[in-house]
């Protein structure tokens, strides 16, 4: 199984390939936020799926289509995987979970990765969000 990213000793280790795909997806969607999901064994990302943002206010919000979510949920089940990565971009703000991100974070076992585009270079940050509490993971590129 190809591993695009994995959680290792409190860090989120991201392949250059996955990072490049995240940046490409975010830049293509800007000034709107983009979103995507990663599937894999617990703590790993074997597949990354860039998805459409269907929220009615996409500049500052994102929402994955219910149909996409089901399709990938069933795909993960077929493979014996989980949804292990929830990805979105913050085109104009820091890549830190907003109050909205915290309120709607419903996947305690997934890594929430946010790519910020406000600075001179894209900045990827990763978090676990459980019961509204944020724990940041160090991000390293492999």
């Amino acid at each position, binding site marked *: 199984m190809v591993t695009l990213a994995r959680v290792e000793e409190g860090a989120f280790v991201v392949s250059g390939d996955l990072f490049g795909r995240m940046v490409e997806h975010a830049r293509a969607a800007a000034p709107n*936020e983009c*979103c995507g*999901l990663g599937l894999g064994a617990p703590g790993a990302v074997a597949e990354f799926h860039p998805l459409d943002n269907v*929220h009615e*206010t996409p500049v*500052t*919000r*994102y*929402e*994955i289509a*219910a*149909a996409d*979510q*089901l399709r990938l*949920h*069933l795909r993960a089940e077929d493979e014996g995987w989980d949804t292990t990565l*929830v990805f*979105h971009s*913050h*085109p*104009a*703000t820091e890549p830190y*979970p*907003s109050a*909205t*991100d915290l*309120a*709607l*974070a*419903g*996947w*305690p*076992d997934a890594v929430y990765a946010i790519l910020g585009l406000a600075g001179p270079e894209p900045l990827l940050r990763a978090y676990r969000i459980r019961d509204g509490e944020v724990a940041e993971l160090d991000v390293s590129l492999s």
Partner: protein
Amino acid sequence: MATFRIPPVLRPLTDDQVKVESPGATLGEALEGLFEAHPALRERMIDTDGTLRRFVNVYVDEEDVRTRDGLETPLESGSSVIVLPAMAGGAA
């Protein structure tokens, strides 16, 4: 009898059960049975106006109930009901 598949974030409210069975001719009826057994689920899934919460997705036999009849969506014997918290958020 329908089988609800409970997502990880809601399992603390179902005594960590992954699958919960509940009878009913419609999704709404089966949900009432589910809420009777696990009352804390109601607030997480149903809004104050009695409809499904905006950021909870429910699928009956792999179809989004919002594209069918919502809580009135009919259930077959052995229907599978998947509950997935929406994946949503954003900077504002």
